[in-house]
């Protein structure tokens, strides 16, 4: 096995990492919370994206839909980062070297970038099309890209569980019906 950077080693052997590995209930609860948070992120952003695409909620101003949903999105995103960090700490080295994990981080970064560009450029002129049935092309593109990227994040997240191999020392699951491993 390759040697990870020092900080990855430190995370894995931190008190939090030890606690995650030592507590049989930590993994299932943290994983369930992580799945819940990420589905909330996706589901709430989807409502905004569908409005940006001009497909649904056409009678509601974009700003109102966004304000209402993004509160939940940010809360859930914070929860996903927290539970993800806990998850990561339990087996930091394995995740560090996992390709699906790396791509997942990139996909999250790309989703953030898409959102930032939308916020800083397109959304500035929202007053002109807030209640419009047909939103500007840039807004529609941002909405579509957002949906695709979050589905990618979820896909890669699930892929990690099937590609991380058998290095984990946390307690067993019963679902190893496939060559790479899997949870």
């Amino acid at each position: 096995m390759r040697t990870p950077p020092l900080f990855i080693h430190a995370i894995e052997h931190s008190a939090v990492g030890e606690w995650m590995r030592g507590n049989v209930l930590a993994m299932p609860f943290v994983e369930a919370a992580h799945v819940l948070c990420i589905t909330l992120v996706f589901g709430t952003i989807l409502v905004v994206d569908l409005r940006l695409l001009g497909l649904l909620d056409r009678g509601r101003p974009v700003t109102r839909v966004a304000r209402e949903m993004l509160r939940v999105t940010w809360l859930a995103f914070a929860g996903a980062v927290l539970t993800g960090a806990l998850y990561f700490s339990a087996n930091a080295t394995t995740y560090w070297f996992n390709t699906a994990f790396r791509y997942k981080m990139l996909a999250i970064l790309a989703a953030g970038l898409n959102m930032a560009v939308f916020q800083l450029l397109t959304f500035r002129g929202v007053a002109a099309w807030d209640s419009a049935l047909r939103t500007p092309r840039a807004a529609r593109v941002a909405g579509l890209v957002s949906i695709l990227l979050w589905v990618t994040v979820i896909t890669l997240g699930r892929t990690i569980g099937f590609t991380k191999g058998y290095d984990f020392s946390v307690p067993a699951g019963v679902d190893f019906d496939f060559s790479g491993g899997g949870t």
Partner: protein
Amino acid sequence: MSLESAARALQSTAFSQTLQATPWVVPTLQTIHIVMIGVVFVSILMIALRVLGWVRTEQPFPHVWRRFAPFLWTGLAVMALTGLLLTLAEPVREVMALSFRIKMALLLVGIVSAMAFGRSVRAAARAEGAAAAERPFPLAVRVASVITVLLWLFIIFLGRAIAYDNSVWGSWSPAVLQRGAST
């Protein structure tokens, strides 16, 4: 025939064997299943929050119901299909998990109560017209909406807990560890 031997018989059918032999099947189905959790749970959450008067208060309730109900039912149908295929791919893992059994029972409760709720909403809208839709919901309905959200939270948790049946339920778990200790 015990449940376990039935599950083993199912697992040895040609269809199940084919699913097991195709490595991308289970992760892909799980990914679709998780994406749909986002769609379904956020739809339930939005309907519940509207009942509580926290979101979309400018829209009459039947309007909110019509906005989210198609997502709810389509999402649930896709989840039923992917869930069924996942169960056929790994019958022993699923059937021999207490989390799976409780999840199926609660799903029945969740779906039947959502159908009953949708029916009563439509009946009330027909009988009393738009005025009724503007009134705040009685306390009982608001409590029911909170319970519904909690019920679906528990169903989501149980779905992830299937992979950790022994850890979560201890000696109550009927699960048989299929392979060595890792996740």
